[in-house]
């Protein structure tokens, strides 16, 4: 009996019909597409987008040139050169991030002892020439200045988990 | 010179050209493709003769199936042209004799009054179906030759398979019929489990 049932099931393509019924049902299901430029998916406070360098409230740049980020960067996207400033502190003369190499893992941000290098929520950026995605220190600082409010809020939200 | 004559000479010229190219083309793939062209032009001429069944069958069987297999074989061949040229003169007399014989036969058959008799194609009414006529002839007057031809073909097919089929003992292969015959129940056992343990429940309760 079971065999006969299976025979008919095979030849009447029962299982295929079942599969098609499933996709057929989804044909009428509510669509979940996000219409991107008009609609956007929500971002978490740990969102890892474009990098930025932060400053303290008095305008002093945070980065102390410890090179931890350069060391930990798995893609070797960060390049740092150092010098001693006239007040005796160690500062960077060059802080470049090659975004074409960067994999946005967030290790630099995590390794930074002074929260100088951070990843912002900005993800809509582009380059039109080859060098456009090679971000230098002034560019990163400018980004930090621009988004400082959002960055500070995100740091505060993340603080209790650190 | 009416339209049909123009079409006929067009097709005829195409046949002559293509069949010449079949034997002169250097690349065997081109030769096969020219043979295909020859067949299609022949079909055209047969359609002019209102033998549409034969014409379409020629396209269907020879062009659509036989020549495709031919192409398959020829495309996979590794052909050394110089090697082929070498024996050209040795086989020339043999080939020429064969060609002469065939030409003679054709002239004999087509030229004699008995077989063709200078007959022209007969015009038929629009509802005349030469498929039906052919079927009637094959299954009445020519039923034995037809059946014998069929048996010969069957034997040839069986022989070809028997000659080429070798089962290597060490070759591993899947048994597709077995794979397909398996049912969900043979492979998959669905076990019901409570989704959360008691301890996990308590833990999550505490966090709230």
């Amino acid at each position: 009996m079971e065999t006969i049932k299976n025979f008919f099931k095979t030849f009447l393509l029962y299982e295929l019909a079942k599969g098609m019924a499933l996709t057929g049902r989804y044909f009428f299901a509510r669509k979940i597409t996000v219409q991107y430029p008009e609609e956007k998916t929500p971002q978490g406070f740990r969102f890892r987008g474009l990098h930025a360098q932060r400053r303290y409230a008095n305008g002093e740049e945070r980065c102390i040139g410890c090179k931890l980020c350069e060391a930990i960067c798995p893609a070797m996207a960060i390049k740092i050169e150092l010098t001693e400033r006239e007040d005796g502190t160690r500062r960077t003369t060059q802080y470049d991030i090659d975004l074409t190499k960067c994999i946005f893992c967030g290790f630099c941000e995590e390794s930074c002892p002074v929260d100088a290098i951070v990843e912002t929520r900005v993800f809509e950026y582009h380059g039109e020439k080859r060098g456009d995605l090679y971000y230098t220190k002034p560019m990163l600082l400018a980004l930090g200045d621009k988004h400082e409010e959002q960055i500070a809020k995100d740091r505060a939200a993340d603080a209790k988990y650190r | 010179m009416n339209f049909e004559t123009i079409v006929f000479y067009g097709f005829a010229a195409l046949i002559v050209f293509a069949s010449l190219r079949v034997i002169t083309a250097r690349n065997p793939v081109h030769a096969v493709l020219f043979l295909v062209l020859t067949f299609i032009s022949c079909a055209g001429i047969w359609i002019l003769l209102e033998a549409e069944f034969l014409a379409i069958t020629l396209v269907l069987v020879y062009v659509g199936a036989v020549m495709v297999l031919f192409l398959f074989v020829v495309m996979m061949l590794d052909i050394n042209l110089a090697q082929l040229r070498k024996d050209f003169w040795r086989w020339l007399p043999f080939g020429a004799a064969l060609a002469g014989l065939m030409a003679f036969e054709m002239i004999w058959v087509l030229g004699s009054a008995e077989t063709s008799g200078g007959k022209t194609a007969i015009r038929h009414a629009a509802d005349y179906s030469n498929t039906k006529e052919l079927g009637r002839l094959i299954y009445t007057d020519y039923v034995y030759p037809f059946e014998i031809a069929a048996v010969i073909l069957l034997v040839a097919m069986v022989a070809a398979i028997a000659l080429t089929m070798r089962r290597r003992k060490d070759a591993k292969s899947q048994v597709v019929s077995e794979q397909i015959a398996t049912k969900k129940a043979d492979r998959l056992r669905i076990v019901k489990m409570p989704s959360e343990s008691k301890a996990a429940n308590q833990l999550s309760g505490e966090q709230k």
Partner: protein
Amino acid sequence: MMELLQTLQQLGQELLGPAWLPVWTAVKILVVVVPIMLTVAYLTLAERKVIGYMQIRIGPNRVGPYGLIQPLADGLKLLFKEIIIPSGSNKFLFIIAPILGLAPALAAWAVMPFGDGMALANLNAGLLYLLAMTSLSVYGIIIAGWASNSKYAFLGAVRSVAQIVSYEIAMGFALVCVLMASQSMNLGDIVRGQQGSLGMLNWYFIPLFPMFLVYLISGVAETNRAPFDMAEGESEIVAGFHVEYSGMAFAMFFLAEYANMILISFLTAVMFLGGWLSPVPFLPDSFIWLLAKAAFFLFVFLWLRATFPRYRYDQLMRLGWKVFIPLTIIWVVVVAVWMQTPLWVW
């Protein structure tokens, strides 16, 4: 409608004389081919939309309202792309292959009966002609594969041609059942043979149900569509026989595939679902019914693609040779015997 055509004929006859016949034929061909091309264009959009909907997405919706201009945009893009001819390829064959692929797909429409007596050519051996035309379409593929001088293209071509040739046999036998039932190879007569007082119960898909399924599945395999799209095999052999093609040459293959799909849908409707006949006796027969049936099968094509994973090649060959061909041969005998008994009422 008919009178209008008559007057048009007469007018043309008077105006152009003997040159009218080729002009009129060209007009008739255009009347059939242009809608097919438009259908092909919008079928690509429909495919993306339908598959999108089944994957709870919405598909293209940016170009024009609901993405309705998308096919034109795609067409334009392909038109302006460069046709790259690989070095070491056979240029003449490389260029002619897509044309050889598309031409039979369009030529087959000559015998399609759109309504009672509405066919470009009322051929007595229409069914044979169709089979011949579909069997010619392999040349485009095999020549493309060989002329590209690329092993991916060649392997893709070999796979796809082997598949098409295998399934053609099953398809042919399924059609043999139809022509036995209708006792005619004229497509118009086949549809007329399905006429009756019971509407859809008179159609051939009831006595020939297994053949209907075989024909439909072979049709999917014949057109190299998912789940039988081994020829393309995006994830295995990068695109099969047309890897080396770009721009309009590629578009021709694309057109051929979709034109074949539409052809198979119409043929299934004509052979098994009574063509232009109405499914219920109280509604009039009309061209609309044929369109509706064909549209349904086209939807099934897309539906299949959205549902099933790709077949494995050896399983595909097994299905063709060891399941379909024996099944069709047995059913030919069954139908032959059945037709001799009084139980045959179709």
